[in-house]
């Protein structure tokens, strides 16, 4: 995958400011989301939709952290994986300028703010996502190899259009009552966004990231290709089933989704089996936990689809999908991607590239790992037993972890800056 870093040389690497601005914004929303959950934890058990801080916190993670990270990673990794440059660096930056203020307005609107803020914010976010989809599709259409990466990425683009369209309808519906069944449209939005857009991005880029970090080879097995088609069928059935409020179709979607997850996880297991690098550290603990939580979230979704105990099943499904699978996997990947990219940007004439370990502060990452798992466990249990204090306790742990992750990121930037701008030794200090 690094052929483009080197074929055409290091100049093909996007300036560090492009991916890192997305990552930095994602980490700010990560902190604010946990803080919002801490503040509004009592409203999470039994939450089945509607405006308020829980909805805002959910979108801080989905759009603020997951989509932001996905954009930054996609802009950096897709041209590398496909060996074709993106059309325009400025357009990549433009998505950030549209997305960030759009999100702030949208989230304000979700948290009982004025309707115009929701509409304006939603429009800006959709414009950013549309531009992102255009840039990715433009890159993908020039690629005929890398079928596992591009196949999943195409699906992500397709479901991005679906999730954006339903999302805008849901926003308009808050003021007008346009939709016949707001709750089921929201469920379709969750399936298309969680499994369709973000899920396909995560699964596709796993075929780049896992071999890269584990030094392994993607096995020549057909499961990966099958997982593209089976995932497409599962998410499509899920969206149609929820929109039509059809329990059999939703359950079928769940079963097909489990098959898709099984195929993907089999490929990941085989890829990990061939890895040359045995010690993979805390990031892979998070990524592996994410893999475990993927089928668990689908099972929770199937329970929610049956309509049994909706006050537990619906919020648990949303939590396991967004905070469990996607956030756990992405923060694991991000803590490897950031120092790796920083190291790639750390050499200049007369200065040797910085070691990844020299750029990485391990202590905050360890703290984040423990706090993240504590948060997932406490909030999951809090939702099941209907105890807001447990949710708030979990959110407090999540907040500490998110701050620790931000400390790691700031420290990384500081170490990179110090490495690139060493303090010259004075004559008296010279040996």
């Amino acid at each position, binding site marked *: 995958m690094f052929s483009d870093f*080197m*074929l055409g040389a290091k100049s093909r690497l996007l300036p560090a400011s492009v991916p890192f601005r997305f990552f930095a914004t994602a980490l700010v929303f990560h902190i604010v989301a946990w803080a919002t959950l801490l503040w509004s934890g009592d409203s999470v058990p039994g939450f089945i939709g509607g405006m308020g801080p829980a909805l805002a916190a959910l979108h801080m993670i989905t759009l603020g952290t997951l989509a932001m990270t996905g954009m930054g990673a996609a802009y950096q990794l897709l041209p590398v994986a496909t060996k074709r440059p993106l059309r325009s660096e400025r357009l990549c930056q433009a998505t950030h300028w549209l997305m960030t203020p759009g999100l702030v307005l949208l989230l304000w609107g979700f948290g009982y703010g004025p309707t115009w803020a929701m509409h304006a914010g939603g429009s800006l976010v959709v414009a950013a996502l549309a531009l992102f989809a255009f840039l990715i599709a433009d890159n993908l259409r020039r690629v005929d190899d890398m079928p596992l990466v591009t196949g999943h990425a195409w699906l992500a683009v397709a479901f991005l259009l679906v999730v954006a369209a339903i999302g805008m309808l849901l926003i308009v519906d808050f003021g007008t009552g346009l939709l016949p069944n707001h709750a089921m449209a929201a469920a379709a939005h969750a399936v298309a966004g969680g499994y369709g857009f973000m899920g396909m991005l995560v699964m596709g880029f796993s075929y780049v990231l896992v071999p890269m970090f584990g030094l392994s*080879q993607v096995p020549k097995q057909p499961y990966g290709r099958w997982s593209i088609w089976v995932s497409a069928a599962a998410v499509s059935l899920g969206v149609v089933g929820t929109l039509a409020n059809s329990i059999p179709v939703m359950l079928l979607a769940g079963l097909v989704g489990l098959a898709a997850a099984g195929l993907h996880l089999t490929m990941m297991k085989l890829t990990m089996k061939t890895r040359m690098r045995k010690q993979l550290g805390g990031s892979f603990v998070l990524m592996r936990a994410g893999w475990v939580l993927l089928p668990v979230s689908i099972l929770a979704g199937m329970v929610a689809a049956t309509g049994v105990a909706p006050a537990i099943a619906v919020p648990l499904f949303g939590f396991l999908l967004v905070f469990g699978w996607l956030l756990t996997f992405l923060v694991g990947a991000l803590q490897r991607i950031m120092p790796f990219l920083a190291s790639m940007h750390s050499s200049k004439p007369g200065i040797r590239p910085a*070691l990844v370990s020299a750029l990485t502060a391990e202590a905050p990452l360890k703290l984040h790992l423990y706090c993240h798992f504590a948060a997932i466990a406490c909030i999951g249990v809090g939702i099941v037993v209907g105890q807001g204090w447990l949710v708030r306790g979990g959110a407090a742990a999540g907040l500490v972890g998110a701050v620790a992750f931000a400390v790691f990121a700031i420290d990384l930037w500081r170490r990179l800056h110090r490495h690139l701008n060493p303090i010259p030794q004075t004559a008296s200090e010279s040996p």
Partner: protein
Amino acid sequence: MTAQTQTGALLHTDHVATIQALQSLEGFLIRQTKKSAPDVADEAVRKALQSLVTTLTNEVGRHFGFEENHLFPLLAERGESGIGEFLKHEHSTILPLAEEVADTARKALDEGFDAASWHRFYDASVELIEREIFHIQKEEMGLLAAIGMLVDPAADAELAELYRGLQVA
């Protein structure tokens, strides 16, 4: 990512062997810790150091030499000089480190480690492990793909034959 050429497959085999050696070294360093120098009279320690010296002296030098003298010039002829320059720059950082580790290990096999030589060996080894693995990561993902894209089967067979000859020698 996948070695699709004969030359790529040979380089990949080298990478696997080097990573195994480096991971053994890493395990040795972790078990030993920086505080206590190992006893080179211990047969297991001697074996580990001898194997390390062999890998670093023969394998790494031969591998880098083949790439710099044969592979990178060929890629440059095919219009791609950036990759060679980039990796050569990394070689110039890694090779002195590998030599330092090998020299210190060789000397320790004769004279044992004192605190200063053990600390030097430890620090250089830790840096070597990380730089070499990061380097292999790039070669596995970039160079092997580049060979597949830029080197035709006839030239690939010729290069592979040449490399096998170096291995025998």
